[in-house]
């Protein structure tokens, strides 16, 4: 069993805006592309051109339909899912080898692939289904928040963010310190009522989800008042309207 470090003041994580996520999957492949070329084992794909392609992804987007309780038009919600970097991470405490660990400085949950024996206990322990076993390397894979980008001096400062955040076309993914109530991500969570996933489980996820705004409520612009019901009436209105129009010259 592995122990968690004391809670860190810095809590790096993602804030994902379900109002703005368009389900385009850009984060999914940017993540896969970056992390398959990272320092761990590549994210393999079995049967890549065959009947049942199956590979390891650190981030997946699911799409749901939602029927509003008031009978309004059905809605579609795109739901990106990845490790939530829980403060009380059951995937860490369950790990028999110490491979699954939480970084003391910023709370990122990581896997030391050299210590991972591929037992899969952490994936069972994670209530969010956020871990995937690499089908070739046999080690557990998960979101690292692109830890290898965050403090890499070789990268431009603007690029020291997770690949999924950098690529998100609608700007639905935000990255920052959720331990700092003044940070832009914390402010966003406060403004928009950001939520934990499955808070009852006590895992205290760092990542937050911003709920979709209310849909299908026309703002109720004042109804249009007719000035005419036929062409003749319209032309009468037109003459009157033009007579009040300022001249250019």
């Amino acid at each position, binding site marked *: 069993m592995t122990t968690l470090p004391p809670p860190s003041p810095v809590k790096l994580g993602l804030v994902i805006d379900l109002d*703005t996520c368009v389900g385009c999957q850009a984060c999914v492949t940017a993540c896969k592309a970056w992390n398959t070329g990272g320092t761990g084992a590549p994210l393999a794909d079995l049967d890549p051109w065959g009947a049942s392609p199956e590979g390891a992804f650190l981030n997946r987007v699911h799409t749901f339909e939602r029927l509003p309780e008031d009978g309004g038009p059905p809605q579609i919600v795109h739901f990106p899912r990845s490790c939530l970097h829980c403060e009380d991470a059951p995937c860490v405490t369950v790990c028999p080898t110490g491979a699954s660990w939480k970084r003391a400085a910023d709370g990122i949950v990581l896997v030391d692939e050299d210590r991972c024996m591929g037992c899969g206990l952490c994936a069972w322990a994670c209530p969010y289904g956020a871990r995937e076993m690499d089908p070739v390397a046999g080690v557990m894979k998960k979101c690292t928040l692109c830890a290898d980008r965050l403090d890499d001096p070789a990268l431009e400062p603007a690029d020291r963010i997770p690949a999924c955040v950098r690529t998100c076309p609608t700007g639905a993914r935000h990255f920052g310190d959720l331990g700092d109530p003044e940070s832009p991500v914390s402010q966003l969570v406060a403004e928009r009522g950001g939520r934990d996933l499955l808070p009852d489980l006590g895992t205290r996820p760092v990542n937050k989800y911003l709920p979709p705004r209310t849909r299908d409520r026309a703002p109720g612009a004042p*109804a249009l008042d007719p000035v005419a019901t036929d062409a003749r009436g319209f032309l009468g209105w037109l003459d009157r309207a033009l007579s009040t*129009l300022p001249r250019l010259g």
Partner: protein
Amino acid sequence: MSPRPAHRPPPDRIAKTTCYMCACRCGIDVHLRDGPDGRPRVAYIEGNRDHPVNRGVLCAKGASGLLHHSSPARLRTPLLRTGPRGAGEFRPISWDEALGIAVSWLRPLRESAPEKLAFFTGRDQSQSLTGFWAQAFGTPNWAAHGGFCSVNMAAAGIYTLGGAFWEFGSPDWERTRLLLLWGVAEDHDSNPIKIGLGRLKARGARVVGINPVRTGYNALADDWLGITPGTDGLLALSLVHCLLEAGRIDLPFLARFTNAPCLVDEDPASPERGLLLRDGEGRPLVIDRRTGKPAPWDGEGVEPDLAATWRHRGTTHRPVLHHLAARYLDPAYAPEAVADRTGIPAPRIRALAAELAAAAFDGPPVVLDRPWTDFRGHRHATMPGRPVAMHAMRGISAHSNGFQTCRAIHLLQALLGAVETPGAMRFEPPYPKPATAHPRPHADARPGEPLAGPPLGFPQGPEDLCIDAAGRPLRIDGAYGWEAPLAAHGMLQSVIANAHAGDPYPIDTLILYMANMAWNSAMDTARTMEMLADTDPATGEYRIPRIICSDAFSSEIVAFSDLVLPDTTYLERHDCISLLDRPISEPDSAADAIRWPVVEPDRDVRPFQSVLIDLGARLGLPGFVAADGAPRYADYADYIVNHQRRPGIGPLAGWRTGPHGLAHGRGEPNAAQLEEYRRAGGFWQAHVPPEAAFFKPWNRAYQDWAVAMGFFDAPQPYLLQLWCEPLRRFQLAAEGVGPRQPPEHLRDRLRAAMDPLPVWWPPFGDEDAGGFPLHAVTQRPMAHYHSWHSHNPWLRQIHGSNLLYLPRAVWDAGGFRDGDWARVSSPTGTIEVPVALMEALNPRTVWTWNAIGKRRGAWALHPDAPEGVTGFLLNHLIPDRLPPDAAGRRLPNADPVTGQAAWFDLRVRLERLPAPPPAARPALPPQASPVPPPPPLLAERPGP
């Protein structure tokens, strides 16, 4: 414990070029690492932060480009067919042999009958070159894929506004308060729309999605109107009705910048009745408010009167606005009259009209403090905005009423003053550009000679049709004939059927580039494959004697080609994203871009553009050989730098040379131009001066800037063409006026379709669709582009098979359950496919993702891959021609104005299958793969 993971080694280089995983042309940073052999490998691809199109972001496709590049589906060498057409049996040949064969086929055609070459391209971005080549060869039978894509948008936009939504228009993302998306699924303009929607969301602007299916952008929309397919024009005209009825229209805008005040010739005896009255110099007339007398529309200081009529020689000539009022105030356009048909309740239509008016006229004013001068010399102290933007795409385009529907949307925009005003739709240079400033089409094929002008253009009347003395089309696709008079992008979808039938004449050689005509780009796909492989029993020869294709991948069309010229990928070649073609401009800047070989091919493939230039030289085509007959250009890169379309105007506008050093826009060729582009990140950008950035069609500062940049040679202000005279000229012909008369059986159709005002008619086939109660459409998945990405392991794990989505009412009525299959029938055919329930769907519509289904054997996929087993196309159900009329004639399944393929007119019926079959039907036998089988797993780190 150490804070691992460690930093990874930085890339050896970052090469900035242009993506080509779809049509958007985003800037990309390609991370390269040198392999053990010293050759650079692609390690990662991300968006270029400086790029005007994508500003650093990238979509799922773009980031997957490295697997595109390393795909086992890539062709490796030129191929010559050895087995029967369609079998996929080839022998590898050398480029010398391949080009020798191509020349031996093409040279005799050029010398005897150049029109016997048909050269059509798919979603390529080198149409400026391919069109120039076709013109030099002398064949009119050239076009790209616009005929089955979005020519309705392009043509309606250019004929009406002088620019189209796609791809020379953009919402004013910074300022708009209300965006209407009409029939825009997940596609064009992909990343810019996604970025823009994010910006609108961030500042609380509203988005209304009008689409039968609530996927993609419509899922984000604040309001979703799940319209019945093919009825958007009726909705738009009903909104027009509401705005006119309430007098909520922008009178100053209409008076100054549209032809609403232009006088219509109403003399019933005039051969120009229904056209605009003109002065002796051919200038349309308005009544000048200053004098109350007729004056030319563009006269200095003229103030057009929207209301005044002109009594002349016993006839009262009324301005266009009078005609608009008479037409659209008709109760037939009232919301209550169109609600059933559109599927949108009348109160929602009225609420949307009210919201449009409120956003345009009532909110806090959007006014830019930028003085400007219009083309009549009036000085304006500010730029007043109308913060209502619209965008439309395939759901509008792919119907047989799409051209006039798109015009109806443009009319709605114009009534709101929401064109080129702050907050509205804006044009991207080199647009705006009126239809009259485009070339007319040319089809005068003569042995051994080039065409007198470009094959495609914008007809202004029947005199510009491409027909012979008997009225038959001069083009193999029928474009610019009476069945498709304004077919401004050609009609790729008709080429194979017409060539097979020898209608209007037999051709000899068909060249296809990046056009998968044996699969997802064909209507009635199974029949198209039969036609490609069909022989004349009398001679045993193929009815389409020779087919050459160029493609980078083993797509379905490869197996049907006699000669295969393997293309490179986008990372291995030069390209120009040119202002002569489809550049990357934004409303505030003119911009073009390049691709360049960031890695060298590791196989015997060549960029098609360079091959075409080589063929042009071997054939001695004008423009491709020097005076001594030697090749004029070494390759495409050489052409990009040194070709001049007009003096000083070449494929790339940046870093040309002028009298005092570097020049942009106009200038002499610069040998270091491509190096300059590479140094600048792969693109060039010139910002529109702030006082020129809005009201562009009418803004003297913009017109002067456009001339200086070389977009055109003299200022050409124009009015928005609410009343469209080219349409009226065809309508006049249908009424019997003029020397060029349509065939009798098309008179009524032309009279109705070529209405100078926007008009709606039911999609063809709707009126007698009794047995086929449902509409069927496709949508574009965001992670794929047409058929391009099923060979990409990451993207096929996102979309590896497709389902037919059924609305609740159909699901319940048919007794469907999860995992069920259905037999889907149209008048053309039957398919059997897996189905699923979807609630957020128009109740009369079923749909599926486009082009996920694949022919077994193609794209290096295993024969058991789901794309080929349960994946399916709707194409099998869609006819390329309408049912026969009383005389047995079959007209194209297309818009009668533009020839745009009417994919989305499809009507079907469904029945539940008692048990799921093992595979979707039709289950076609596998093609032999021209590439070796793929590896069983993918576990390599990209790069070394």
